[in-house]
């Protein structure tokens, strides 16, 4: 077996991460062994061929906790090559601690170039946001997914939800959304808002705010979704129709803010609320830090 020669050395914890010095020799390129990459790569091809369908895969135990991006990390590790430029964001920001930690993991195990500039990245791994800047056909967006099953909170059993997807029985989801309307007068789901992909599968877009849902529709970039703990991979090919579930009398809409970003003045971005004191003081700034600083630079 080709694998037999891949004896992993006991990793040297003291090994310094030296930028530009090549990937950490204690590990295979991008950490995963080749057999695991092949398994994930095959799963991703099926995921792309069946848009929105959750392909089970033998998720590996990664050196970071389940729920902290192990699915996205395995997807990225299976596609990344030395010529890639990687961007990692969490909550839209490049500097959030878990984004930093994942970016360092890939710097160490692949030595690829990293960037915070959205348009310079060939692979963008994200948790909870889609960059504000439109992506291109040359880019791949990798989502970290905690619970891939959009029907899970309506039906906890995998054996049941799998049947529902097989039969296209999505009545339960519509009932849930309609109950919202009956109770609140509108759909009370603000993130992980369910979508229908290419008119077939209902899919969870991961816990991105519904503000980002329209960006998924006919996005030129390939979108890959990895759920490590739940062991599922799914995908949306470029230019694919992604429709946010709604009703004729209650069309889908996105969040809006009454004020622009207080740093860059943008009026078309997702804003984070920053609490400035304990007397109700607060301000609103872009969640996409790259977009915000660059807009600010452009303005100056």
């Amino acid at each position: 077996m080709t694998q037999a020669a891949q004896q992993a050395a006991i990793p040297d914890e003291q090994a310094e991460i030296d930028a530009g010095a090549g990937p950490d020799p204690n590990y295979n390129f991008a950490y995963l062994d080749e057999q695991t990459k092949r398994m994930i790569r095959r799963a991703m091809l099926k995921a792309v061929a069946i848009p929105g369908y959750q392909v089970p895969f033998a998720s590996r135990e990664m050196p970071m906790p389940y729920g902290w991006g192990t699915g996205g990390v395995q997807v990225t590790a299976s596609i990344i090559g030395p010529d890639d430029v990687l961007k990692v964001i969490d909550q839209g920001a490049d500097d959030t601690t878990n984004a930093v930690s994942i970016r360092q993991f890939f710097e160490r195990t692949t030595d690829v170039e990293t960037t915070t500039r959205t348009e310079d990245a060939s692979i963008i791994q994200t948790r909870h946001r889609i960059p504000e800047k439109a992506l291109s056909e040359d880019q791949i967006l990798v989502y970290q997914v905690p619970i891939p099953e959009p029907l899970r909170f309506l039906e906890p059993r995998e054996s049941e939800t799998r049947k529902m997807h097989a039969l296209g029985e999505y009545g339960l989801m519509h009932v849930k959304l309609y109950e919202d309307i009956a109770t609140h007068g509108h759909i009370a789901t603000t993130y992980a808002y369910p979508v229908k992909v290419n008119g077939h599968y209902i899919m969870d877009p991961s816990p991105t705010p519904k503000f980002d849902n329209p960006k998924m529709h006919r996005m030129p970039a390939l979108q890959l979704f990895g759920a490590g703990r739940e062991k599922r991979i799914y995908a949306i090919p470029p230019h694919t129709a992604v429709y946010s579930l709604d009703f004729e009398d209650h069309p889908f809409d996105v969040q809006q803010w009454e004020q622009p970003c207080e740093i860059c003045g943008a009026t078309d971005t997702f804003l984070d609320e920053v609490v400035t004191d304990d007397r109700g003081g607060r301000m609103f700034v872009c969640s996409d830090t790259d977009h915000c600083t660059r807009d600010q630079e452009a303005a100056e």
Partner: protein
Amino acid sequence: MIGADAKAAGSDLNGTGAPNAGFDNPVLQSQAMYRKLLGAMAQPGRILSCELSLDVPAPLWPTTAAAALTLLDFDTPLWLNPGAAAAPALGNYLRFHSGCPLVEATGNAAFAIISDPAELPPLDSFAAGTDEYPDRSATLLIQVERLDDSRGVILRGPGIECKQTLQAKGLPQGFWQQVQENHAGFPRGVDMIFCAQNQIAALPRSTQVEV
């Protein structure tokens, strides 16, 4: 380097001589080839060029061999068309570099290599998965003499902005009708990767075909 020990251990399989060499750098070359395959599958009908310097046994082409080395291992039962199965060097090459078991029945194959499209079995003879697990379906690597995306059938669907044309030389009579039937069974179905000398293009089950 990966595979180094295995090479030493099994360099003379079945007394037919050492198999042709695989990738020089399996980790990075399979990664590069995978990105082509992923790109092709994500943009059905779009032709991607693959410059490969691989020494491969006939009747395999470098593109087909590279795809096989990238995707196959002992977890992937492989079916070969009779012409390919009759070339012992080819079977040895694939078994040696990937460890994949060869299967007789098309229905048991996770992957199939069809070196001569004239020998392509009916698409519905391959595993199409189930409604609950449509991913448990075959992927076919079909060698074709030439690919052309400036003419041919019209493709629409996920991965295609408006429409895409594709022509593949040497496909059997009634092939495109079978592709239409394959698509009609969505989410069940097989997925195809066409391998020409230096090019690949893919045709997943999600693609609609207008002949």
